[in-house]
């Protein structure tokens, strides 16, 4: 076997740190996009985004003057038409309360879908983040190049952020944008902004917490099976244990999905939005108003401080595991 000693020289300027982090990030996302299962999750996520857009669009068309509700009601006689016109007028009289309540609940529901799908995607991702690199001793390959552990961390975090943006943030923004694009006036845009900001804030908190925990779990072992079991255990088993009403608080806090749910209630403030509907909208039947308040209270965050502490412990432990294991082997 004779060595063919012909080789082109590379004299280009090497890309900077940002480029190298981008390479790690994009390689992770590209690989995930190559799996059929992830593509199926992606389709589901965008269906949820389209559903959000459809609900917002329908609501906007319903309450607009001369919209489909009014037109349809006119076929059922003057009385029904008058009721429909009254509903339109009612929403347009109190756009702040109605639009805010609608979008708060819509985004709250969407966040459930977003978190759920992200958890499923992370189950698929966990063994691909650090576990496999440790199994193949690939950390030596990364760290012997002009990369530091921080670059590796940011690259992997970028992969998770990219995946969560595809599954959660993207469909959320898409749903909101389509909702307000065809709205009859600017009040839809204006009054949906606060719920949107809250949704994005929860999105950011969820991303930070889930990404850190996923990286920590992924770094625990070199075995993909072990890390998947650990992830599912922390997500599903601990989540199930935390569900029953009589479960002690400390046990509930040991479930990061429970902690995230508590943070979600605190960030979205669904309780406040529904209470406002029940107490401030006139013409509502007393029992209906009371129902709104009751439902709102159910959505109240009951152990916010404890849940934040719980999430903090998860994040701290995961970071400790990640940095401890992140060395060439």
């Amino acid at each position: 076997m004779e060595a063919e000693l012909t080789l082109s020289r590379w004299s280009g300027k090497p890309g900077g740190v940002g480029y190298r982090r981008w390479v790690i990030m994009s390689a992770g996302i590209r690989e995930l996009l190559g799996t059929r299962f992830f593509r199926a999750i992606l389709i589901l996520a965008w269906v949820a985004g389209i559903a959000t857009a459809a609900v917002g669009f329908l609501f906007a068309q319903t309450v607009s003057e001369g919209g489909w509700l009014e037109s349809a009601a006119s076929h059922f006689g003057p009385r029904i038409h008058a009721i429909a016109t009254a509903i339109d007028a009612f929403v347009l009289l109190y756009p702040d309360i109605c639009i805010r309540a609608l979008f708060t609940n819509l985004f709250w529901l969407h966040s459930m879908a977003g978190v759920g799908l992200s958890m499923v995607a992370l189950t698929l991702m966990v063994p691909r983040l650090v576990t496999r690199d440790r199994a193949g001793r690939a950390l030596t390959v990364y760290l012997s190049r002009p990369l530091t552990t921080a670059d590796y961390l940011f690259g992997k975090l970028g992969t998770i952020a990219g995946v969560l943006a595809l599954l959660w943030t993207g469909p959320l923004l898409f749903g909101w944008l389509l909702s307000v694009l065809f709205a009859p006036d600017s009040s839809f845009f204006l009054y949906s902004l606060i719920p949107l900001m809250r949704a994005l804030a929860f999105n950011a908190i969820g991303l930070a917490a889930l990404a850190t925990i996923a990286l920590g779990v992924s770094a625990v072992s070199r075995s993909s099976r072990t890390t998947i079991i650990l992830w599912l255990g922390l997500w599903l088993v601990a989540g199930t244990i935390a569900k029953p009403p009589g479960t002690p608080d400390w046990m509930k806090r040991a479930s990061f999905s429970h902690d995230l749910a508590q943070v979600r209630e605190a960030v979205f403030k669904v309780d406040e939005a529904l209470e406002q509907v029940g107490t401030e909208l006139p013409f509502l039947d007393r029992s209906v108003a009371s129902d709104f308040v009751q439902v709102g209270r159910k959505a109240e965050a009951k152990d916010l401080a404890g849940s934040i502490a719980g999430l903090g412990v998860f994040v701290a432990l995961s970071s400790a595991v990640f940095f401890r294991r992140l060395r060439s082997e």
Partner: protein
Amino acid sequence: MNETIAEPPLTAPQGRPADGCVIETAGLCKSFGGQKALDNVSVRVPRGTIGLLGPNGAGKTTFIKCLLSLELPSSGVARLLGRDIRAGSRASREKIGYSPEQDCHIPGMAGCEYVTYCGQLSGMPFRSARQRAHEILDLVGMGQERYRRVETYSTGMRQRVKLAQALVHDPELVFLDEPTNGLDPAGREHVLRLIGSLWRDFGISVVMSSHLLRDIERVCDRVIIIGRGRVLEHDSVAALKDKHRRIIEIAPAAGTDRYAAALAGEGLAVVQLPNGRLRVESGSDSIEWVLKLMQAGGLPPAEIISNPDALHELFLKAISDADGG
């Protein structure tokens, strides 16, 4: 502690700086608990092909890992290609390649995909990285296997792909830790020839760590002998051989007894080796006197080998001295 001043390299390949040191260390120490893996290592290594020789556990890999910041030195300073390894930990590794002793790959990636990715990790744009990856894979002797996943490779193929990832970004200095491990004889020959050509043809300095003296002797122009975490010897192969007592081995085509008698007649202590060769200690590197002896005695033709195992003996002596033996 050993302080060796660099000699200029033997050749100056095109497109690469021919002067300056590739490695400079001063008082480099590394301890694992109470165990000293590196003990006050101070060397200045010029460009070229450098062999890092030492028994298992001597500190060769730790030395390389410290230089690449894969291990944090306990004390001391080190510079790679003139850049302090601590001050600019990223910058010092920009023009460095490393092929570790242990198997390392990213599971799930095909060989060419893996080498391309490694090029990109070193800052190469995708197109250049892909082009170089294919060229390097050709160079290391990988054919269509490059499209298979790395985890399905044999040990030899993994060794080649490790070498390819170390070279893909066109480094100025490449560290090869036991690069011939697991290779079949043909593969070993190919890889050694390639390593030998890296400095000669491409101007890529090589630090090759091995416990196989023959490999080092064949491709390297300088040798650093490490034992118990210390640099025991550092010089060019020729200079190291000069330090050694002169040995000549003679393999006669016939008449071994006549040869033995003639050599004994010259007052030399002759040792007959199991392979039939005669071994004598000589006063000089020249084999002129043997030829004269053959002519004078009418002796049959013979193969004459000067300093056959010089490096081996020097290596053993250095290790023995380090052990206090």
